[in-house]
């Protein structure tokens, strides 16, 4: 009886998953198909059709030739990696202190982190630009990564993760005479690798897709990131939707790879059968 119920549940689970897949991924496939449609395809036909009649990869070649995509990709990768490092290290450190240590002013720091999430970016972006100029960093990739280097939301996520680490683990280490840095590195950090991966993914995607800030702080082709540079596919007088679609598909590839590689880390806990301890 138990087994049957399990089977029924499995079936319902997969039906739901496929349903969600269609809803969440259908539009993406549409975009991909648009990118491989050739001039023989009427992309404005009513009703619209999904599969190309005039299949071509030419849009990708055209997009690759039209703009220095390699330079842009390299710049985006540098900005994204700086952002990932900054966020993972910075919010892990801060999250540990906010979750596990008691110190005067902790409430104040927590309040500041929360407050940051409520600030409308639109009103501070010019001030941020002035700060960057004051540091003489305009038109550098570091500047493109700086304001998002340690994001409040990631600090909150890490704080939440550290709170979930069983206290007796740290207590045992304390008895063994481990100091706060040892406890942090050897006991607590291994427990929150999953959330740290989530932070890595979020900051990678965030940095990769960010548009307005890099646009303002970067000045020319040598430093443009992919999202800013991809804009060149949009013509001043006329744009080809297929070309833009091809560009966006190309820009997605690195993110998908990054996610594929790292998703197993935040999932490792379950697959290994629980928290190590």
């Amino acid at each position, binding site marked *: 009886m138990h087994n049957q119920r399990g089977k029924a549940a499995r079936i319902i689970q997969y039906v739901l998953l496929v349903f969600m897949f269609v809803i969440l991924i259908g539009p993406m496939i549409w975009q991909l198909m648009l990118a491989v449609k050739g001039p023989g395809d009427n992309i404005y036909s009513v009703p619209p059709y999904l599969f190309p009649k005039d299949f071509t990869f030419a849009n990708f070649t055209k997009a690759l030739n039209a703009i220095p995509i390699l330079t842009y990709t390299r710049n985006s990768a540098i900005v994204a990696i700086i952002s990932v490092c900054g966020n993972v*290290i910075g919010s892990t450190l801060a999250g*540990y202190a906010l979750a596990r240590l008691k110190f005067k002013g902790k409430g104040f720091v927590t*309040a500041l982190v929360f407050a940051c999430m409520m600030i*409308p970016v639109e009103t501070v972006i010019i001030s941020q630009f002035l700060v960057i100029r004051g540091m003489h960093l305009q038109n550098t990739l570091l500047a493109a990564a700086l304001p998002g280097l340690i994001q409040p939301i990631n600090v909150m996520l890490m704080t939440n993760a550290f*709170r979930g680490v069983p206290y007796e683990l740290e207590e045992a280490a304390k008895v063994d005479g481990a100091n706060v840095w040892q406890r942090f590195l050897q006991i607590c950090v291994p427990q929150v690798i999953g959330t740290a991966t989530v932070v890595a993914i979020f900051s990678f995607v965030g940095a990769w897709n960010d548009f307005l800030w890099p646009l303002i702080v970067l000045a020319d082709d040598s430093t443009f990131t992919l999202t800013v540079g991809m804009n060149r596919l949009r013509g001043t007088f006329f744009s080809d939707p297929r070309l833009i679609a091809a560009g966006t598909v190309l820009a997605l590839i690195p993110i998908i790879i990054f996610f594929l590689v790292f998703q197993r880390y935040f999932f490792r806990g379950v697959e290994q059968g629980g928290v190590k301890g």
Partner: protein
Amino acid sequence: MVASSTSATRATSRAGEKPARVSSKKTKHLNEVDKSRRIPENGVLAPWLFVLPALIVIVVFFIIPFINTLKLSFTDATMLKPGSFVGFDQYIKMFGDPRLKTALLNSSLYVVCVVPCMVIFPLILSALVSGNGRVLAFFRVSFYMPVVMSSVIVGLIWTNLLDSRGLVNSIFKAMKWITEPIPFLTDRWLLLFSAMLVTIWTGLGYYMVIYLSALANIDPSLYEASELDGCGPIRQFLHVTVPGCRSTMMLIMLLSSIAAFRVFNEIYVLTGGTGGTGGEDLTMSMLIKREGTGLQARTGYAGAISMLMFVILGTLIVIENIVQRKADRNA
């Protein structure tokens, strides 16, 4: 205020997430021990070293610029003119602006409708995709995809779907469910709900990932125990998964409330940047962007609106904390 709520969540998280391992009595005992040893072990400096990097970035790039915004809100500054001190004039003007009422209503409705969905649906989704095997891994990756798509593409896709002659209306018509197209993108309320749909569509994958990392921390022995007790998957979800994710649910409630109140992109892209027919679907962030960016920006006025938004969000978070604490006490 946030500080006290923090310790409240912390107590919950321990009681909630690790019920099998740490009895509340033992926790209390440990806390007392902590208190006596804490300072010599941490040092006074160590905690500050931990938070220092985050603190520098936050203060330099957010707090100081925002204090600047606060100062500006008492001036009549524009983007290219520093302006002079005008006291509370911008605030008075703001409360007489009919657009503010619209924006407040829309943003608040967004919170009320979107937040419960963001707390519950991604949790169900993450329970569905958690497990071993390549198939589930494939679904996990797929479901995250809407998050990584640029908002422009998302807008393009959804306008094509929801247009009065778009796919959804075509299907409904073919099914003979409707005779007149449903004005998803032009009706004041339907547009708002369409935008919520898009928000939920992208948010599912985002919050699913956060939940997945929380699920990984639930003690598997709890699942085993519940299975031995004869619990089906639904009861298991309710009695093991949900309690195990409590503190994460709370966090997502806070995060998604802030995000929902600040909604901008979804409405912007669905309307081609116009804020809906007659601007009736303007939200707080859209109003701030309209007044506070561009060459003609009225930075002083935008500053006043930003302050209002900041205060509202702060209040919202405090209320959510109080409600949460009450719920914990009753539980």
